[in-house]
């Protein structure tokens, strides 16, 4: 299985990337800051005001290295992909299944089983690591509620609406207990409820940023295997929304993004003053914190685990690609169902 390739994240505002031989060269104010060989590179992600030379654009496209532009705060702007376009027959099959509500529900079931089971695992781990007294009781109780949701999702063939109902319940149970997994920080790191646009507290700010990184990976992975990130099953079509990427990341959020956020906070690698609170109450990360977060994210992605379905060792960073592949394999008719990634 492919070891997960390198991604360069460029965060320094005003950086300029250009091609030097077979390398991506990063310059800030005409001073060279680094050089990375293109071979073995999977993607380049630019945050905010970053320039890229036309030569490098072409060279990246030719070498199948994706290039993505995000705002400084991680919101998706644009993406350059090379000429390889994937199989139109596979995409047609993807669309046909999305038109079939029963089939959509079947796929949605897979994504949700993964999501709920993995959320539950995150709660149980927190319980094991630092569960005591009231904390322990709350976490256990939430895990039980998730177990119940899991059983209901797994009960044969529910309709999409019913599935979404259970999903809502599961998400509420999980996020109600989320604060209990944070062991430090007091008031600064209290979590009340999910807020996204904009995030209204530090934890939501961390989660949003991490989810946008994950969404980016999911989207690239789908494109790489020839699927259209915009047409999903659990998430229905909405212009501008990468619905299938959102479907795919459901099961990976708890394991990848949530765990990174919790680790950063609990190990006190990120502190209250790593955030800026705007006049409106919106919370954003400052530059240093963004760097720390990207480093943790990269590290997380190199961690190896045994893939429960493939029974092969893979890195967490390659999970998006592996799951996208498995999804394509199911759509092509090679598998009897989509095997979600279930982490134990």
């Amino acid at each position: 299985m492919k070891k997960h390739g390198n991604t360069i994240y460029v965060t320094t505002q005003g950086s300029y990337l250009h091609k030097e031989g077979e390398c991506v060269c990063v310059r800030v104010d005409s001073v060279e800051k680094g050089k990375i060989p293109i071979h073995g590179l999977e993607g380049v992600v630019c945050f905010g005001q970053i320039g890229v030379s036309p030569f490098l654009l072409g060279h990246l496209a030719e070498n199948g290295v994706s290039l993505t532009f995000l705002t400084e705060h991680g919101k998706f702007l644009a993406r350059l992909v090379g000429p390889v376009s994937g199989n139109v027959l596979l995409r047609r099959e993807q669309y046909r299944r999305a038109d079939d509500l029963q089939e959509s529900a079947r796929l949605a079931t897979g994504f949700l089983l993964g999501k709920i089971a993995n959320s539950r695992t995150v709660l149980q781990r927190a319980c094991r690591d630092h569960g005591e007294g009231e904390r322990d009781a709350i976490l256990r109780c939430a895990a039980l509620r998730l177990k119940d949701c899991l059983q209901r999702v797994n009960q044969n063939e529910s309709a999409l609406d019913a599935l979404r109902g259970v999903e809502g319940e599961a998400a509420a149970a999980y996020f109600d207990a989320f604060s209990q997994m944070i062991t430090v920080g007091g008031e600064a790191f209290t979590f009340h409820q999910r807020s996204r646009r904009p995030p209204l507290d530090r934890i939501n700010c961390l989660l949003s940023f991490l989810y946008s990184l994950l969404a980016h990976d999911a989207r690239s992975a789908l494109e790489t295997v020839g699927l259209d990130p915009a047409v999903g099953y659990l998430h229905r079509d909405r212009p501008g929304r990468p619905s299938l990427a959102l479907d795919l990341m459901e099961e990976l959020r708890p394991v990848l993004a949530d765990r990174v956020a919790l680790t950063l906070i609990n190990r006190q690698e990120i502190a209250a003053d790593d955030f800026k609170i705007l006049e409106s109450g919106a919370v954003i990360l400052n530059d240093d914190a963004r760097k720390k977060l990207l480093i943790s994210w990269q590290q997380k992605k190199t961690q190896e685990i045994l893939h429960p379905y493939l029974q092969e060792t893979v890195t967490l960073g390659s999970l998006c690609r592996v799951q996208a592949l498995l999804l394509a394999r199911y759509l092509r008719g090679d598998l009897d169902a989509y095997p979600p990634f279930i982490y134990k």
Partner: protein
Amino acid sequence: MYSEDDLVQLSALQHYIFCPRQCALIHLEQLWEENRLTAEGQLMHKRADSGKAETRGNVKKATGLLLRSLALGLSGKADVVEYLREEGGWRPYPVEYKRGRPRPDGADEVQLCAQALCLEEMTGKSIGEGALYYGEKKRRKIVPLTEKLRERTIETALGVHELLKSGKTPAPVKAAHCANCSLNETCLPDLGAKRTRVRDYISRMLREE
């Protein structure tokens, strides 16, 4: 006769002989995984691919010639075609550059033969032989274009067209050559044999506490 729209890349023949699934993954699914081997191959090709022709005495050498055959439904590029001076003109002599060493499956010979068939169709000249040049051994191997090789080439082309027309990617059959396959990580050849039912996997994962 194929129409121009139905032309398939010459390289598909080699992929097909190596593994029909690999051929489908590349030419049908359009998945292309670079690995070290293909990257090195491309570097070598770049050198042989300058698109120029030079003449030295009785040999003219053309690089990067664009070829096609409507009879076989193939199109692509020849690394090097040498033209040998003969009475009344030049006789084409294809030379294909390969990294590594000769392969036992004969795919290199078939690809060379396909190039020759394209050249014959385009120039109207008959070609008796060509050569394979192996980078690792720095050695030329003369390939006579026998009736047998021509037949195999035609059959392979037919097989490729049938596969691509079916629109179906064959299931993986894991074999020793999978280890050298540039698409190994995308193909997941293990899945073919293991084929754990996903429903069993899910119940197992949800049961195990």
